[in-house]
């Protein structure tokens, strides 16, 4: 057998070293013992990861390869020495070579104690979950008064001591064999067949078929038709592949899709169990990964883009179209960023197209009201546009005075609505609105963005003009296919076909700056290798920070409170990385205090379509006392602030009739959620009240009052402006809801050319930003459908300038 012996101290003179050296010689005919020293092991520091250093890698490799480990520990202050504790901390931080390894503890000390207390501590330390060693029980070898124990040749003097060590060592060899057997993968045999199980996905249960032969997992098929495209696709592809390739269930979850990853793994585990085998055996089968030495890869390209969402892929596509090279770095395993979660339609005024549609009742009224708006309320830089718009509207109203008319729109209406929609005042009384030049750039170019998307293959459904939630006006261009994913799929294919490179799982750590000019980035790839990218320009397109609660709380000046456990509707990737990168080279920030919340989100996941998500006319919102607290037809901001004022958590009350108006659900999903306790259902309101822990009398009265208001068509309490159904048909439902973060309006300060500006308002050479990472456009509130216009427009602008600036520089 082959063992590793660790000298548990860095002292120059050590009786523990002598003890190990004695064991090495004495047991030479039975086993090979390689002695490792702690001398060069750095002090453990979680803030300065040195797992990849030679000394720690050497310990890891040797321990993994050995049949067992013998640790000889002195006792310092009734415990193990810090030097020994330090190596164990390194070997339980990012790597776990002790996991399942047989360990024998011995110890020598000056006193009669013989390290008795240190050995007990060491046992407990080795039992910790990050270490998870298999320590041999019993047979404690304590060498007291070690200074008298050895002769001049370093041999133990007392025969009784040697005999006891012999018996301990014999037992350890046997123990090591048993431990190895315990950890060896058992030969598994399945009852062959195809097993129908379910996997838990992002949006609920997914049917899954697992085909097993007598000794192998042959096939895993997942029906993903009910999942949102783009979010977890990578988990559905990669996890089954890794399970089948490695014939193991010990596969790592994919960041950003961990629920789905575990859902798939657990589903296969159930199939294995149904086939009569023990899934834990498959979880033990670790696909042994060799610890690779860190490598550095250097790449040179023209433009490097940080983030593979809509803005980043657009920028890359534009660079490639101009005949230059582009490299996109994405920290997550899948491309798409937040764009795959977008509802789909993008705003762009296209009057020639919109004119095909008849105006809706109320639209003329809205236009009329706009012309009556006091000009003093319009910021001076927008006034000229506002006057021209008023003329356009007056002409339109006069032309259509005696008929329904067709849908009106113009670039100016889009601009003024973006401006008015973004106007907000924060808690400090600071007013904010969209920066004129940026809003003009956005609205002037949005239609060109639609046209450009069409030119690279995005297909739009031109038979309908839609109004995305919170958009104010019908100018949404809706792609065919799967909402946000439709853009990403086309862009990704285009980028790859044009020879662009997308590196996923490659987070950018810092910007490369030479003489004040940004000339590339440093990133780390999935194999922990450093990737250094040299480029003429860097485009930051890494999204906002709605998934970074600490950062939201730090900058927030708009909401009275943001809970520590606030959830987000966004991808978990949205942690403000680009903002950090930008500010690290002196970029200025704008509008950081303003963020958007989705008031009616799942309190556990931030998801929108769980429980009974119904049209707002059917919302009946009650707080944790069972009372209504707001006009449920109010704006997102009004609902959010009211919820925050009521302790964030509230319930949507519904009945059987309202249930039928819910989006994106099915009876099966509803039953499952009731069973899981994430949705409440009862035959009477009183029982429902008990389930959600509110006073039954209060809830019953709240609902009976509400029903009266529906009958009367008016709500004297909260002035709800639109009603539909009453709450009266059992069973009754309560859907728990909480506001979740949705969009961050603030970000890097840019100019109309997407150049990132420093605190003096000067462009930072070589640095560009597009999409949610940049601020100044949407100001206090972003219109629904404008984020897509923003990413595709500024993504194109950033690329064009990154190339143009560089070409000028070369000519000069």
């Amino acid at each position, binding site marked *: 057998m082959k063992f590793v012996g660790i000298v548990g101290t*860095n*002292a*120059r003179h050590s009786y523990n070293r002598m003890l190990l050296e004695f064991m090495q010689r004495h047991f030479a005919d039975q086993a090979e013992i390689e002695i490792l020293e702690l001398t060069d092991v*750095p*002090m*453990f*520091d*979680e*803030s300065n990861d040195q797992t990849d250093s030679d000394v720690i890698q050497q310990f890891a490799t040797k321990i993994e390869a050995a049949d067992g480990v013998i640790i000889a520990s*002195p006792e*310092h*202050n*009734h*415990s*193990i*020495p*810090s*030097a020994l*504790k*330090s190596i*164990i*901390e390194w070997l*339980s931080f990012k790597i776990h070579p002790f996991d399942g390894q047989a360990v024998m503890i011995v110890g020598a*000390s*000056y*006193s009669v104690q013989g390290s008795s*207390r240190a050995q007990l*501590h060491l046992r*407990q*330390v*080795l*039992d*910790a979950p*990050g*270490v998870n060693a298999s320590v041999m029980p019993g047979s404690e070898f304590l060498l007291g*008064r070690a*200074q008298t124990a050895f002769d001049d040749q370093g041999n133990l003097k007392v025969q009784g001591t040697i005999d006891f060590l012999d018996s301990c060592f014999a037992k350890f060899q046997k123990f090591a064999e048993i431990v190895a057997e315990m950890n060896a993968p058992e030969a598994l045999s399945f009852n062959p067949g195809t097993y129908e199980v379910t996997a838990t996905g992002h949006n609920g249960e997914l049917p899954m078929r697992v085909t097993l032969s007598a000794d192998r997992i042959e096939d895993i098929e997942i029906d993903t038709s009910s999942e949102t495209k783009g979010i977890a696709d990578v988990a559905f592809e990669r996890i089954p592949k890794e399970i089948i390739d490695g014939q193991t269930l010990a596969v790592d979850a994919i960041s950003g899709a961990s629920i789905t990853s575990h859902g798939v793994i657990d589903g296969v585990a159930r199939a294995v169990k149904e086939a009569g085998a023990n899934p834990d055996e498959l979880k033990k089968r670790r696909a042994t990964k060799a610890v690779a030495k860190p490598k550095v890869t250097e790449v040179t390209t023209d433009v490097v883009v940080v983030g593979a969402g809509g803005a980043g892929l657009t920028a890359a596509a534009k660079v490639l179209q101009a005949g230059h090279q582009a490299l996109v770095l994405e920290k997550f395993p899948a491309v798409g960023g937040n764009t795959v979660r977008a509802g789909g339609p993008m705003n762009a005024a296209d009057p020639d197209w919109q004119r095909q549609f008849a105006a809706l009742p109320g639209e003329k009224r809205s236009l009329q009201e706009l012309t009556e708006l006091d000009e003093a309320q319009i910021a001076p830089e927008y006034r000229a546009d506002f006057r021209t718009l008023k003329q356009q509207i007056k002409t339109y109203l006069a032309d259509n005075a005696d008929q329904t008319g067709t849908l009106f729109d113009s670039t100016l209406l889009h601009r003024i609505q973006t401006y008015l929609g973004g106007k907000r005042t924060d808690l400090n009384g600071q007013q904010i609105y969209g920066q004129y030049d940026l809003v003009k750039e956005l609205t002037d170019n949005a239609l060109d963005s639609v046209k450009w998307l069409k030119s690279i293959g995005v297909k739009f459904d031109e038979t309908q003009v839609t109004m995305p939630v919170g958009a104010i006006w019908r100018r949404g261009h809706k792609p065919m296919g799967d909402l946000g994913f439709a853009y990403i799929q086309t862009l990704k294919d285009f980028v790859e076909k044009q020879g662009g490179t997308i590196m996923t799982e490659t987070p950018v750590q810092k910007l490369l700056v030479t003489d004040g000019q940004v000339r590339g980035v440093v990133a780390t790839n999935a194999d922990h290798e450093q990737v250094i990218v040299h480029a003429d320009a860097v485009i930051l397109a890494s999204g906002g920070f709605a998934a970074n609660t600490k950062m939201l*709380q*730090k900058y927030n000046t708009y909401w009275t409170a943001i809970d*520590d*456990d606030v959830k987000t509707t966004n991808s978990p990737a949205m942690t403000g990385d680009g903002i950090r990168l930008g500010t690290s080279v002196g970029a200025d920030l704008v509008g950081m205090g303003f963020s958007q919340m989705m008031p009616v989100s799942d309190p556990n996941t931030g998801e929108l379509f769980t429980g009974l998500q119904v049209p707002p006319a059917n919302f009946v919102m009650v707080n944790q006392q069972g009372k209504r607290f707001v006009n449920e037809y109010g704006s997102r901001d009004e609902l959010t602030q009211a919820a925050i004022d009521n302790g964030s958590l509230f319930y949507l009350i519904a009945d059987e009739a309202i249930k039928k108006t819910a989006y994106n659900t099915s009876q099966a999903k509803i039953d499952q959620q009731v069973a899981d306790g994430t949705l409440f259902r009862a035959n009477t309101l009183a029982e429902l009240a008990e389930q959600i822990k509110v006073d039954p009398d209060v809830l019953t009265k709240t609902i009976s009052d509400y029903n009266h208001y529906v009958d009367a068509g008016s709500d004297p309490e909260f002035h709800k402006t639109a009603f539909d159904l009453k709450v009266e048909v059992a069973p009754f439902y309560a859907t728990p809801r909480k506001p979740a973060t949705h969009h961050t309006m603030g970000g890097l300060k840019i100019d109309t050319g997407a150049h990132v500006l420093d605190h003096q308002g000067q462009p930072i050479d070589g640095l560009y930003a597009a999409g949610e990472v940049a601020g100044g456009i949407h100001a206090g509130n972003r219109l629904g459908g404008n984020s897509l216009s923003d990413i595709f427009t500024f993504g194109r602008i950033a690329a064009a300038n990154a190339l143009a600036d560089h070409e000028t520089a070369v000519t000069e």
Partner: protein
Amino acid sequence: MKFVGIVGTNATQSTNRQLLQYMQRHFEQQATIEICEIKDLPAFNEPDDRAAPSTVQQLSDKINVADGVIFATPEYDHSIPAVLKSAIEWLSYTTRPLINKPVMIVGASNGSLGTSRAQAHLRQILEAPELKALVMPNVEYLLGRSLQAFDDQGNLTYPDKVQELDNAFDEFVDFVDLTTKIMPSSQFFEKSKQFSWKQVTGEE
């Protein structure tokens, strides 16, 4: 009263540091707490001359003049971090400022157990004859779920934990008073302010 608070980790982000900073402000009427970092101490390595490096000497001097010491420890692998153990080894091997020094142990962890096992180890370590600290008995302050425990101003947001800390700190102040009464300095005499493990055996 004047206390020294020792941050038991070298990590840049530490809720144990936050806990001490909170205690420093929260108890400023009752005591001055000077927060000491151990991240810049060298790793312990028995020096031939038994001399404390200057950073260890500085820490030791602060402990010497303090009325008591508060250790805030994380838990790594069911025990205290190596870096804290190293600092204690320096003190035990060179200047021994903890002899008869009243000590309060607190700890914060992101899990729910709040460093219970590390604290038990630390208690045993501080009671070793090389250290002879007077660790306050009976009181154990464990702060679990510490990543969510502090708001932006660094205030502890769990009301029950604030109350518990108030009680623990009151007891510690009483404990310090009491120990000065029962421990006249003349009564206890250490052979040597310098210690070695060999000494235990009477070899020197």
